[in-house]
């Protein structure tokens, strides 16, 4: 019976990236995907005839440029189209557009506050400086400050070097970012709600926290990381939908010799003594490998794949406190015609970027208030994109796709997560009603509506508790603490079992960094 060097559980972008890097290093690799399509949550599917939805993940945020080069992804079909601007429509008034052009952005902000307009570029520069500290962290395994191993200490010192260059002011800002809420942090800079509200949401995306919850300021930094990638313009759409990111990585992996099987659900690990020796498929087939790499989230990995008896109780306990609690949903609309925002009618450049339904800080906090007590927001934060304006391969000419990321849709409804199917359409109606207020006539243009609740994300996409990042991106679950202290280097308590998903450092988003870093770690440790 054939023994692979590595079997990867899950064909999402991280599993595939891990496979590609291992295959590139000459290892025999098999990827097993439960569904009929590859991509996991980075997937494109034709849900309505002629319309290809990026069903879950809808923008490419921080896909590592080094991975694009290493795996020659453009040769395998990857093309990224930048998101150009950010529009926050209002029920009355022109709202706000932040453009890639400094002068135009200044004029936009000055409508609300001349002071904010003049300070905005300075804020951007300061954030970019701070983000520079964070960027090397996501391109390397996270050093553990509790470790006394010389290489760990050396790496820690190297990462620390830019901190010294920050100066006192920079360090003060950083500490504030790590402790303050997004709203409080922005209050230190700006006065205009119209500006602060759409800026603050980058602190809460994917978390079960509000813009006034402490520590949400830090997550805003990730937003600026895309910008310090500078020329790389990492924020954008993948041509053909987000699934093309996964597909291009899959094609690269196959070109390096990796095998990929779809509709091959893994039931559990195949053990030899207390070591992982392969996997058992749902149909009973046993497949052997020197290592098994799980790209599914930590909860699935350690409750479904591995029998608890193989895990130290301290580890199981640590993971039981790992916070997933998904808080977002997704509504994908197939449209007969473009929406018309009363704020700014027409199909101009302003609707080609992302459109943020975030009219004020209070609005966002109220949306969180609903969620705190187990209801979806009556008026949610919605991040809308119209990818068909830049990518004509997604829908028939003249037709459009409106992709809506919606927060809050807490997994833990007061009536229990399993009650989500009863609330699904009401949730979809809430989203459409919210948008209809800003873009009257939208309802009549909808040809098809797909509503994805956190429950659906768990059931259909294997995202435990519907968490899009395989665990919240909050400070206490990042870096050397992701997914658990002592296990941040992709290894697990089970010999022969490794992790490479978004539940490992540096976390979620379509970065593919966990997959790459895990592969590199395994190769370095001669695990296979």
């Amino acid at each position, binding site marked *: 019976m054939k023994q692979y060097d590595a079997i990867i559980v899950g064909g999402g972008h991280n599993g595939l990236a891990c496979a590609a890097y291992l295959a590139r290093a000459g290892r025999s690799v098999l990827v097993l995907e439960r569904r009929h399509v590859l991509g996991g949550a980075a997937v494109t599917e034709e849900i309505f005839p002629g319309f290809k939805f990026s069903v879950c993940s809808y923008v490419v945020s921080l896909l590592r440029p080094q991975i694009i*080069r290493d795996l020659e992804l453009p040769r395998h079909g990857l093309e990224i*189209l*930048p998101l150009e601007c950010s529009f926050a429509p209002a029920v009355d008034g022109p709202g706000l557009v932040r453009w890639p052009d400094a002068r135009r952005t200044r004029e936009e902000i000055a409508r609300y506050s001349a002071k904010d307009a003049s300070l905005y570029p300075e804020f951007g520069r300061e954030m970019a400086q701070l983000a520079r500290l964070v960027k090397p962290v996501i391109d390397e395994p996270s050093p553990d400050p509790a470790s006394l191993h010389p290489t760990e200490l050396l790496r820690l010192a190297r990462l620390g070097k830019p901190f010294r260059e920050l100066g006192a002011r920079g360090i003060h800002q950083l500490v504030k970012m790590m402790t303050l809420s997004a709203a409080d942090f922005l209050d230190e800079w700006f006065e205009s709600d119209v500006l602060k509200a759409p800026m603050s949401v980058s602190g809460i995306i994917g978390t079960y926290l509000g813009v006034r919850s402490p520590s949400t300021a830090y997550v805003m930094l990730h937003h600026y990381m895309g910008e310090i990638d500078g*020329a790389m313009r990492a924020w954008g759409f993948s041509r053909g939908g987000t699934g093309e990111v996964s597909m291009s990585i899959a094609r690269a992996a196959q070109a390096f010799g990796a095998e990929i099987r779809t509709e091959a659900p893994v039931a559990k690990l195949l053990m030899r003594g207390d070591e992982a020796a392969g996997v058992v498929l749902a149909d009973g087939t046993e497949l052997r490998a020197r290592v098994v790499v799980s790209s599914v989230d930590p909860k699935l990995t350690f409750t479904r794949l591995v029998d608890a008896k193989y895990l130290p109780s301290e580890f199981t306990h640590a993971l039981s406190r790992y916070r997933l609690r998904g808080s977002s949903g997704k509504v994908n609309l197939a449209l007969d015609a473009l929406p018309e925002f009363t704020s700014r009618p027409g199909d101009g450049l302003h609707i080609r970027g992302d459109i943020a339904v975030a009219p004020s800080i209070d609005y966002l906090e109220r949306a969180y208030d609903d969620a705190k007590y187990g209801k979806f927001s009556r008026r949610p934060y919605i991040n809308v994109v119209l990818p068909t304006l830049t990518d004509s391969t997604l829908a028939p000419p003249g037709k459009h796709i409106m992709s809506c990321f919606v927060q809050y849709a807490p997994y833990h409804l007061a009536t229990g997560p399993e009650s989500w199917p009863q609330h699904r359409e009401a949730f979809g109606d809430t989203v459409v009603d919210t948008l209809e207020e800003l873009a009257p006539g939208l309802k009549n243009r909808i040809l098809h509506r797909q509503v994805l609740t956190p429950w659906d994300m768990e059931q259909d996409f294997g995202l435990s508790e519907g968490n899009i990042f395989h665990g919240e991106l909050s400070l206490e679950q990042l870096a050397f603490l992701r997914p658990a202290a002592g296990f941040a280097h992709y290894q697990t308590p089970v010999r022969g079992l490794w992790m490479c998903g978004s539940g490992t450092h540096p976390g979620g988003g379509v970065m593919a960094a966990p997959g790459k870093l895990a592969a590199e770690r395994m190769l370095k440790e001669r695990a296979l």
Partner: protein
Amino acid sequence: MPNATPFHPRTQALCQSYKWKDWSGYCAPCVYGMSPEREYNAIRNGAGLLDVTPLFKYDVSGKDAARFLSRVLSRDVRALKPGRMTYLCWCDDHGKVLDDGTCAHLGDGRSRLTAAAPALHWLMRHARRYDVTVADVSDEVAALALQGPTSRAILRDACGEVVDGLKFFGVATARIDGFEVVLSRTGYTGDLGYELWVDNAHALALWDALSAAGKRHNLEPVGLDALDISRVEAGFVLRGIDYTGANEALIEAQKSSPYELGLGWTVTLERDGEPFIGQAALEREKREGSAWALVGLDVDWPAIEALYAEHGLPPHVPSAAWRSMVPVYRDGRQVGRATSGTWSPTLKKNLALATVEASVSEPGTPLYLEWTVEWSRQVVPAVVTKTPFFDPPRKRA
């Protein structure tokens, strides 16, 4: 003072950047909007509409047209069928390239040559012995490039099924709103794309027809900056930038042969009948080897990031392509110069076109390129790479 092309009323209205440049005596937009990036993306992901009227165009007709052209061009075009176009260059007596361009067989013994620089005198000088008429139609024929993945859909909407049968480097005649337009499936972007040739009188009607059809297919007007990014990705050389036309070179060292420019594949040495101009010299060079080679360079991006990091800066590349001569080194010795380059938004790579000594031109050869950060001259590793850097299957499909 540059002239206005027949499309000027449209391009001027659209050009919000006020950035124009002189292209062969015509004013041409560098960029319409805020940055060339979105226009570049139109070329790669929707379609870009570009005024290429400033190209020089010569119509050659008469009994000897094909024989005459095969004498002056380095490529034998006698076998070029009606409805076909080909890419080529032409040389002086010493086998040094004067210019590169295209030759289309339009049917009825009529061919059209395009050129980057004026070539009328050169053509007339050699035409005397042939039964041909050479007409300079540069100022009579307006031209548009329609480039990008949706260009075919736009043309189908604008002028019907004639587009469907048009293969790569094919030429056809179509009618739009009652006037005639020559279509060729060619371009300077390395993508699926077409060029359209029309009498000046119908230029605006053509622009309007394409704009209308493009509404549903992500069509954008694009300027020369975006074109420059895509042509470097496609590995196309540009006369006056990557090489000097032999008739404009001030010294011998500035001249290049087709082999040195990577255009050897367009040269037909094996042929019946009379030789072409420069043939003897090129036969000799082919036998003895060339001194230089034009290559692609993949410039190591992490090394550039590291250089900037030493200065405490995030990496920076200009948003448009660069076109200045930059030294290329091997083992500390200068072995050539890069002549143009760009950050490739699609490949996420830093690319350059360079002329290097033939001995270091094999793909994979590690070289160094000068890179200036904060006024400090450094070198970064660059690997010789086959061009085109970017070659999507849709170009030929």
